[in-house]
């Protein structure tokens, strides 16, 4: 049945590894929701690069949870570029000396070539009438969101809810904590990652509303059926800024610094921004944003720097051992 010769060649290639491929190779270690995005961008970049320099390059992709990928790079995964869900995971790489601490200044928009936000995915017709964050804590509403301790995206969900409560009239830390605590009481399943949560909601029928990235919500509509779900954009949400950086130590070792930098800069070109927008991420380029204005609904967005003083502070206060997330579960049961 199987073409055995092809199998043999593949096996041989696996054993011998890179010596068979003389072309320079970049390894992009990324988080889960960008699989489809980078598949398209890589194709464009490679032909663009070949045209410009005559060099044929290869790009390999590795995807996993954002934190897991950062750990893998620390433990020796030789990724030339890291494209992760949140700045904290790249800060950790900088702490280990894999790249310079000022990495966010080396690319436009603090190293975030695109943004996203957190929206709600509800079942068709929105039977529970969910319009905004405060509808999530109505008595009969079940919420699905992944575990902020194990998923990068889930941390954005949590912070978005917190920020919403802070931004309400008379909102303060105490009220925010009470709101988020109430919200997590409505969570029946804490999956370990964003895609797992989507599957629980869509395929297993758990809960009434899924908190997820906007791009994931678009993808879910596309892949799982626009006739089954609809997207609800809340009044306020967080500006999620996934970041990219060259892992200097690895790129220097491979002699791919130039290529890696060009690759990341390419993300800011109009062509790449268009691909980005097509995949449901909010582009940085105003021109592309204009073209896709209908797709991305206007929503009042706050940044993590504004409300939480940046990722390091947010991580420490909310998600570290004994932090507010732990306290919420300590107190609620």
């Amino acid at each position, binding site marked *: 049945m*199987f*073409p055995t010769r*092809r*199998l043999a060649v*593949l*096996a041989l290639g*696996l*054993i011998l*590894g890179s010596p068979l491929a003389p072309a320079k190779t970049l*390894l992009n270690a990324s988080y*889960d929701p960008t*699989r*489809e995005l980078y598949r398209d961008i890589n194709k464009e970049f490679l032909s663009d690069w070949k045209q410009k320099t005559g060099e044929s390059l290869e790009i*390999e*992709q*590795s*995807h*996993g949870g954002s934190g897991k990928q950062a750990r*893998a790079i*620390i*433990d*020796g*995964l*030789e990724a030339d570029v890291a494209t992760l869900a949140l700045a904290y995971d790249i800060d950790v790489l900088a702490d*280990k000396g894999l790249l310079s601490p000022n990495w966010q200044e080396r690319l436009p928009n603090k190293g975030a070539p695109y943004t996203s936000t957190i929206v709600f995915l509800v079942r068709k017709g929105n039977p529970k009438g969910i319009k905004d964050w405060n509808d999530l804590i109505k008595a009969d509403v079940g919420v699905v969101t992944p575990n902020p301790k194990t998923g990068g995206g889930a941390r954005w969900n949590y912070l978005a809810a917190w920020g919403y409560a802070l931004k309400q009239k008379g909102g303060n830390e105490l009220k925010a904590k009470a709101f988020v605590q109430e919200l997590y009481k409505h969570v029946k399943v804490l999956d370990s990652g964003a*895609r797992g949560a989507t*599957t629980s909601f869509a*395929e297993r029928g758990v809960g009434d509303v899924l908190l997820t990235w906007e791009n994931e919500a678009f*993808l*879910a509509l596309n*892949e*799982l059926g626009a006739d089954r779900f609809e997207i609800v954009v809340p009044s306020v949400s967080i500006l999620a800024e996934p970041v990219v950086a060259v892992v200097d130590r690895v790129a220097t070792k491979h002699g791919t610094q130039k290529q890696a930098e060009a690759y990341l800069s390419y993300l800011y070109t109009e062509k790449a921004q268009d691909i980005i927008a097509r995949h449901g991420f909010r582009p940085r380029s105003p021109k592309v944003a204009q073209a896709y204005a209908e797709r991305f609904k206007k929503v009042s967005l706050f940044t993590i720097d504004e409300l939480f003083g940046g990722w390091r502070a947010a991580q420490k206060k909310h998600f570290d051992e004994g932090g507010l997330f732990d306290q919420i579960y300590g107190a609620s049961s």
Partner: protein
Amino acid sequence: MTELASSPSIPRPASLTWNLAKPLRANLGRYILLAIAISYGVLILGLPLAVVLLEAFKKGLGSYREALLARDALGAMSLSLLVAFLVVPLNTVFGLAAAWLLGKFRFRGRNLLITLIDLPLAVSPVVAGLMFVLLYGAQSPLGPWLAAHDLKIIFALPGIWLSSLFVTLPYVARELLPLLESQGTELEEAAALLGASGWQNFWHISLPRMKWALLHGIILCNARVLGEFGAVSVVSGHIRGKTNTLPLHIEILYNEYQFTAAFAAASVLAFLALITLVFKRVAQKHHTQAASLSA
């Protein structure tokens, strides 16, 4: 057993009616046992398999074939087969040695050794992977030396191989041990006293008596290597088409909402599990033929 025979608690057939009723009652018990066993087997094992197969063939044979012949799927399959090829023989040799040692001899520390061999079962796969990261990763004491010599263990084939070895280490040994224990050592002793060499003793006396258990052990070990997800996931690096084993490939497909393709790939592993069937058939035929020849 003499004790049993003389035990007063065993009722003797007292009357003809009792004797007549007995086969029926024995059969009833048999049917009840059969019903329990079959429903448990179907509930716990059969239904999950049915789910996998239904999902795999949901979009027809064409897309099933396509899913299996996709470039990344073939790459993942060949990597998985390569790993199994590197792991199973080693653990088989170890399993035979360990089972022989623990089954035929009594010595101090024997219990501890048995428990040690069981240990990989108790180690969470995530931790199993973590151990090798701690041992050979860039942050480990060995890390700088490995990097200086450009030796890749973690996030490459050796890491996948090592963690698979670890996870499946107990299977052959554990499969053989209870059998060797229940068989005792009389035959081997007799053979040795009659002048058989150690090797002859093993080859002609012991091996034929444990071939079923050995086969089971190898099949289990092989199945587990091919199916191992957690430990390999930690040390693989998930590089598409390069360090993705079949279970990791399935995860990717599933995460891409390609449910049908994911279950198609999973069904390959499920069929591998069913291979026991073929093995046993062949071996049994062999067995009966040999028996009829010698008769």
